[in-house]
């Protein structure tokens, strides 16, 4: 495969996740490399979200290995420990703290030491204020920084959540359908943002919007029924007959019927 030999940051090997005996993910392999925008796609119920859940500790695999930086086994770590190692996750539904202001949401995420007593005696530093300022302009929410986050538009909430991830400067960014519900202009902006943030880290995006994938993907991994179907560039993926059958074909049908996923 012609992939540049970038460093593998997170690798999942033979991951299986079961829910009451049902295998949502079945022997799946996936490696995330630095400086890459990697898309994980597949039909509804393929197990994409579950894969993200495994990476951030929300779901525990029945078998398989998750290695961070080649040596840290994540399957034994708690969610907050995984987050502190530098694996950030954005959920499918925007999940921000709606009672806090936009700025407070970012400050909460920025805080480096997150133990009870560290936070209790934390002092707001000048550089923190600057980091927040910078992030506000990156995600385009400078104007609304004092606003209650719950009052933001859907797109703004998505960005705020992305900002909350990025401000922690994670090594791995996991995004579950980040452009769902966004306008075309917002989608475009988000894509640009993804490209910019992939410098020095790896970004994994789950997405249904094929136009968006085509535009911004580096590598594409296709999942089907909990298994790896294929991996390659968007062109390779689109040329593949199996993919057309299980995924693109299905999508087209769905579009004709008019049932959005």
């Amino acid at each position, binding site marked *: 495969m012609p992939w540049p030999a970038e460093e593998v940051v997170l690798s999942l090997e033979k991951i299986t996740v079961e829910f009451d005996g049902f295998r949502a993910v079945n022997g799946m392999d996936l490696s995330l490399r630095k400086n890459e925008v990697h898309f994980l796609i597949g039909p509804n119920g393929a197990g994409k979200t579950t894969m993200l859940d495994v990476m951030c500790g929300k779901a525990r695999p029945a078998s398989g290995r998750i290695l961070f930086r080649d040596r840290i086994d994540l399957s034994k770590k708690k969610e907050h420990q995984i987050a502190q190692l530098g694996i950030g996750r954005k959920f499918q539904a925007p999940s921000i*703290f709606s009672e806090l202001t936009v700025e407070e949401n970012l400050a909460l995420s920025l805080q480096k030491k997150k133990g009870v007593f560290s936070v*209790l005696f934390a002092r707001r530093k000048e550089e923190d204020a600057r980091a927040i300022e910078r992030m506000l302009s990156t995600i385009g929410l400078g104007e609304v920084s004092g606003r209650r986050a719950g009052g933001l538009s859907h797109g703004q909430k998505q960005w705020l959540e992305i900002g909350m991830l990025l401000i922690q400067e994670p090594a791995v960014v996991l995004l579950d359908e980040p452009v769902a519900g966004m306008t075309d202009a917002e989608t475009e902006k988000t894509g640009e943002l993804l490209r910019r943030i992939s410098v020095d880290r790896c970004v994994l995006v789950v997405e249904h919007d094929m136009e968006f994938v085509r535009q911004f993907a580096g590598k594409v991994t296709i999942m089907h029924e909990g298994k790896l179907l294929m991996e390659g560039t968007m062109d390779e993926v689109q040329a593949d007959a199996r993919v057309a059958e299980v995924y693109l074909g299905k999508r087209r049908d769905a579009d004709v019927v008019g049932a959005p996923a």
Partner: protein
Amino acid sequence: MLLKNATVRRKIVITLAYAAVVALLACAPMFLSDFRLNLLGKFLAYGVVALGLDLIWGYTGILSLGHGIFFGIGAYCMAMYLKLEATGAGRLPDFMQWSGVTSLPWFWEPFRFFGVALLLSVLLPMLLALLLGFFTFRNRIRGVYFTILTQALVLIVVTLMIGQQAYTGGTNGITGFRHVLGFSLASPSVKNGLYYISAAALVGSFLLCRRLVRGPFGKVLQAVRDGQNRLRFLGYDPAKYQMFVFTVSAGLAGLAGVLFVLQVGIISPSMMDIVPSIEMVLWVAIGGRGSLIGAAAGALLINASKSGLSETYPDFWTFLLGGLFIVVVVFLPKGLFGLLARLGARMKGGLGDAMAGGRGRAVVGEDHR
């Protein structure tokens, strides 16, 4: 410019309001009878409980219907000291003699010393809370399930207290105190002193709670309340925060118990049972969840009206309290203080918002997919 003026004005108004409250508390002994002053002192102790409850409920989203226990343990610890002080050296407390106990049980020994009793009356509730928190919050038991467990704790402790009559005084509780540190509890000047200590404790607890709910720490607490799952994926461990505030809150209830028993002169299981535990939460709900001032004021107001009304119409009070609770839950989620703040905001345009503090919202469940 206009904004800045408004902020400055608001600050001045709030500072003046605080000063007025402190001045009022300081002057109360001058125009209240001994009886009324003693009552007010008791209500101030209740105010301390309310602050701790608001800290966990209003700000962190943990509803405890078991704070009577923490209050009661604090009160019992001090009562044990007072009882031994009243009994005199070498003799046994009266209820022990009646039960045929011949020597002082080992766990009563430390309570010969005021300092030890005071320390334990705060530390024991904290320890118990920490234990309960350790086994629940870490296992992600929360919401209604946690609340039910706090009620179970009440049942267990109260049953234990009543059952061990020989060591705890049973249903009658512990009473018949005379002195504290050599001062007679009956003397008016000692009563005055206890009142001032209660007032200082309330102000101190208020400052402590305010320190906790403001700044970055307070934001984490609100985040625990509104989305603890999300918070986890930002690298925070919500269980540690829950354990911490729950423990602090229990310590405050224990302190309140000390102040209570010193001024009221008796503690019995019925004062820490299910009903008082629920009443404590009502003070906060009616006064104003998510606002420290509201919670403390709620405790004072409700207890003042309770003693006022139940002197004249004893039955009527229970109906009124129940009715008031329903009205508040249905129409005023932020309590009377929230209503006040809203009215203020309407008149002054924004004043109330700052005073209302955190937005009280009970989150039962959340889902992140």
